[in-house]
């Protein structure tokens, strides 16, 4: 039990590391304090790692340092090179690594419980530790395989549309139940020595499978919820291993990350007016697009040109820009900021309006605009700006669709009914950049905004169109 009977200073140091992590998140309450917060996070991690290395008898320091150097080097290079538009994929990939690391640590604890201080009298692992270990491994495995699928969907290695297996709810619930039953059996089984019980391996295998099964039916636009949820799981996995190791830094961090992911999932679900369960059940976008296809009718709409847009926006007093995932796909954030600059030079007030679920992860649009040097005090959240559309001369929609669909307010039969949306229909003029009239947005619903009197459709690639507007503005 030596790892538990530790020097009290060691426990204090882990606690300090935990507090640093709390301060790291606290710093994110405003962009001004955020970088200081991030430093606290690094300090906390440094304290945790050094404390562990100093207080354990280490048989293999060179190997450990090489491992840190390899991993650190890879991580650092990726972080430098990654494009901001690829941030959702990157975060999903990082989640999968935490998940896999948790599984490896749990297996190592299972094989060598003495090192973790969980080898009880008589050479067996106590039931409580077995439960913690099993949960840590299971949550880690779900995080890993779920994140791999989320990564593949976000990165385009796999189609973003939901894959629906027949009877998937039964399969999923049965697998989850099996994991819980196995955990109980594992805890109470007689074979409890290091590496002895085969139930543990079955449990880990099932957990890998359920992570995969849970994420494949969920479609691309629900990814903000999925990424947040996996974020949460990676925290719970760390917390479970913290219980095994009786380590306060891991427990505090696990709880922080777990609640963070859970809150983000909640915010995302609320912004789509959907329950968490309906997102997790999956299949959104697959059924509804089939339904609306036949009901679609030809309605008149107006096509605008880059010159029209440039002329009208130059004369406007205020323009509100609504970016969506299409802007990220087209990498149009830089040209969009140039357009904003030109308009401001003409004395136009320019604001950006961001819906909570715009993009593929929470805050995705904000990062892209920040990358393009848009000052963050020109960027507004839904509830802060929605009242301003009535006074706005122009609503400029680029790569968004469902988040401006008035059907969410009026049409009870619409799959997006109840979702909070921007009141763009109140603006005097609407420019809607869209690749073609064919696409229907993610939810597969027609959008009345296309056909409004004040709407001009700008049909082109988003980046190309904004470049043309910039040229026209400069003339």
């Amino acid at each position, binding site marked *: 039990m030596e790892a538990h009977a530790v020097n009290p200073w060691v426990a204090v140091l882990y606690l300090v590391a935990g507090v640093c992590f709390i301060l790291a998140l606290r710093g994110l309450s405003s962009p001004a304090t955020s970088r200081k917060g991030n430093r606290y996070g690094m300090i906390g991690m440094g304290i945790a*790692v050094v404390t562990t290395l100093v207080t*354990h008898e280490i048989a293999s320091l060179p190997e*450990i340092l090489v*491992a*840190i150097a390899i991993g650190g080097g890879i991580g650092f290079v990726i972080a430098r090179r990654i494009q901001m538009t690829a941030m959702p994929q990157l975060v999903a990939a990082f989640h999968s690594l935490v998940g896999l690391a948790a599984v490896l640590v749990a297996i190592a604890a299972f*094989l060598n419980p003495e090192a*973790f201080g969980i080898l009880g009298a008589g050479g067996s692992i106590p039931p409580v530790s077995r439960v913690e270990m099993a949960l840590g491994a299971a949550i880690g495995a779900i995080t890993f395989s779920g994140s791999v699928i989320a990564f593949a969907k976000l990165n385009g290695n796999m189609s973003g549309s939901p894959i629906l297996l027949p009877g998937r709810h039964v399969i999923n619930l049965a697998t989850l139940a099996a994991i819980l039953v196995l955990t109980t059996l594992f805890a109470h089984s007689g074979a409890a020595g290091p590496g002895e019980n085969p139930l543990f391996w079955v449990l880990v295998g099932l957990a890998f499978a359920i992570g995969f099964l849970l994420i494949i039916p969920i479609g691309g636009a629900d990814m903000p919820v999925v990424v947040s949820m996996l974020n949460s799981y990676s925290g719970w996995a760390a917390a479970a291993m913290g219980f095994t190791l009786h380590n306060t830094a891991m427990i505090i961090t696990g709880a922080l*990350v777990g*609640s963070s992911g859970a809150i*983000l999932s909640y915010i995302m679900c609320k912004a789509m007016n959907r329950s968490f369960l309906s997102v997790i059940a999956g299949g959104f976008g697959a059924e509804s697009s089939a339904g609306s296809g036949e009901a679609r009718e030809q309605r008149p709409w107006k096509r605008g040109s880059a010159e029209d847009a440039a002329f009208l926006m130059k004369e406007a007093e205020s323009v509100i820009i609504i970016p969506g995932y299409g802007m990220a796909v087209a990498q149009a954030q830089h040209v969009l900021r140039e357009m904003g600059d030109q308009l401001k030079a003409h004395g136009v007030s320019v604001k950006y309006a961001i819906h909570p679920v715009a993009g593929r992860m929470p805050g995705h649009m904000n990062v892209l605009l920040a990358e393009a040097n848009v000052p963050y005090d020109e960027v507004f959240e839904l509830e802060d700006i929605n009242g301003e559309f009535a006074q706005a001369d122009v609503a400029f929609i680029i790569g968004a669709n469902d988040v401006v669909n008035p059907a969410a307010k009026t049409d009870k039969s619409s799959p997006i009914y109840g979702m909070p949306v921007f009141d763009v229909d109140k603006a005097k003029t609407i420019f809607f950049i869209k690749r073609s009239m064919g696409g229907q947005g993610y939810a597969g619903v027609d959008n009345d905004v296309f056909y409004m009197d004040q709407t001009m459709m700008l049909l082109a690639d988003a980046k190309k169109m904004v470049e043309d507007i910039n040229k026209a503005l400069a003339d």
Partner: protein
Amino acid sequence: MDFVSILSIFVMACFVGYYVVWSVTPALHTPLMAVTNAISSVIVVGALVASAASGSPVAKWLGLGAVVLASVNIFGGFAVTERMLAMYKKKDKSSAKRGKH
């Protein structure tokens, strides 16, 4: 430490997490995910314990594998967060830096 005191720390930390995370501005939700990702790699503590111990060579190599994975996350997570946060600028600052490229 006994199970109950550990559980108490955990429950308290969940509440702290709840209030701290609600105070995060929505504009910084992506950096929030990146930094929570980096700090959840504190699992590296478990990985170090496993790889430091003698006894089971398999456990040691699994531990070293976990150290590599967690290190990718620690360095990658903090670096990418830093990179993102450096982009968030206020109006006055960015107007000085503004220019065509």
